[in-house]
């Protein structure tokens, strides 16, 4: 009778699994940076009610928030090459899966963070931007120097939530063939038939990452508060 739970195997395979953490962090980082930038732009578009773009942004946000991430990922990973091929672009097969993953993730984070940024920008007193105009700042400058820094510091806790859910969302990318911790656990499990131990390793790594991220955000929050 074999053991039900091989603790030593779990410990032994932990270093192998954690060595794939870089891809998880890379995806999270790229998605968060592009996503928050995109989200801020969309938030400004929606607040200022820019014609046409305003409606497009509304549909985009509704779609991104109304459909599962995995469906978006599949749509992009399987659907986009098909669409491009029909349009006559042929060298689409050379594009790595990671590109699609980052694209979808950025768009996904963009939609979620745009709502956060919108409420944060609206929370900034109107007098701030009026004051900026009164001393001769232009629109872009007023946002860049006065509104956005304050909005970001307000939005840090909510943005952290988005960052952490992005981090957790990276556990789905193995579905399109990116080799991350989940895929590695899957591959190792196929060999050793001990999937449970491997997935518990993965869970431990995610728990640690979530803990570290929330601690970092607490530190940033303290530093960034203007109050």
């Amino acid at each position, binding site marked *: *009778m074999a053991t*039900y*739970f091989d603790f030593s195997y779990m410990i032994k395979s932990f270093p192998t699994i954690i060595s794939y953490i870089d891809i998880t962090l890379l995806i999270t980082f790229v998605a968060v940076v592009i996503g928050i930038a995109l989200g801020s732009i969309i938030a400004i578009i929606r607040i200022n009610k820019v014609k046409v773009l305003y409606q497009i942004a509304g549909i985009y946000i*509704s*779609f991104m*928030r*109304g*459909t*599962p*991430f*995995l*469906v*978006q990922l*599949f*749509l992009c990973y*399987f*659907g*986009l090459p*098909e*669409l491009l091929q*029909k*349009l006559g672009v042929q060298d689409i097969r050379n594009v790595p899966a990671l590109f699609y993953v980052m694209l979808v993730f950025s768009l996904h984070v963009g939609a979620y963070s745009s709502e956060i940024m919108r409420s944060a920008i609206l929370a900034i007193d109107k007098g701030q931007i009026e004051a900026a105009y009164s001393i001769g700042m232009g629109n872009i400058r007023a946002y860049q120097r006065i509104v956005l820094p304050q909005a970001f510091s307000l939005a840090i806790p909510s943005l952290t939530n988005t960052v952490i859910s992005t981090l*957790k*969302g*990276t*556990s*789905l990318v193995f*579905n399109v063939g990116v080799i991350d911790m*989940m895929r590695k656990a899957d591959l190792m*499990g196929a060999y050793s038939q001990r*999937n*449970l131990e491997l*997935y*518990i390793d*993965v*869970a431990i790594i*995610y*728990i640690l990452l*979530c*803990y570290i991220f929330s601690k970092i955000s607490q530190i940033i929050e303290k530093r960034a508060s203007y109050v």
Partner: protein
Amino acid sequence: MGNIIEFSFMYDSFWELLQYVPITLFLAVTTMIFACVLGLLNALIQIKEIPVLKFFAHSYVLLGRAVPTMVMLYIVYFGLPVFLMAFTDKTGIDTGYQHISPIFFAIVGLTIHTGAYLSEVFRSAILSVDKGQMEAAESIGMTWWQGFYRIVARQAGVFAVPLLANQFLDLIKGTSLVFTITVVELLGGAKIACADDYRYLERYLVVALIYWGISIIFEKLFLLAERKVGIFQKGI
């Protein structure tokens, strides 16, 4: 191929895929019910500060929210049979672990995940009700449970509905992961159909549209519910 997107094909696959929607909704609703029970119990344990259980409840909330849904599903999918096997071997009680349908694992996995979130929802909702309400209830001779059920829970409900709605919408989207543990729901059905004819673009577009539709419908329903529950709050 002339057309970039073939609408007649999309129309056909829409009806084809619509048959999987009940499975998705079944998963979401069943999970929501179990998760509500689990979350409420967990929240009450934390609020009433029951000695040993409090510690477990607290760690469950922390761990349950830190583990991605996908990982949770896999741990349940691979772990529960091992656990049941060990149980059967040790005690001789046959749990029939060989014949459990994967949909059961899906519900268990999603419940554990959602329960942790709902626990926080319920906890914050209950704490949002003024402490004086419970004290007043106890002062007129109600027991804690009576006070909770008759006074606090109803007011907490108003606070909780929008949060529950959010969680439910998240859960509907979360059900799209269970095809990885061989449950055939909306996305799983689409994936299988795609393996036949390789028409990913149109079919996944249809899947996305169906999910979008479901989300919008439930959003509207929950808005109605919110108004209904909040009706006696108007005076305040």
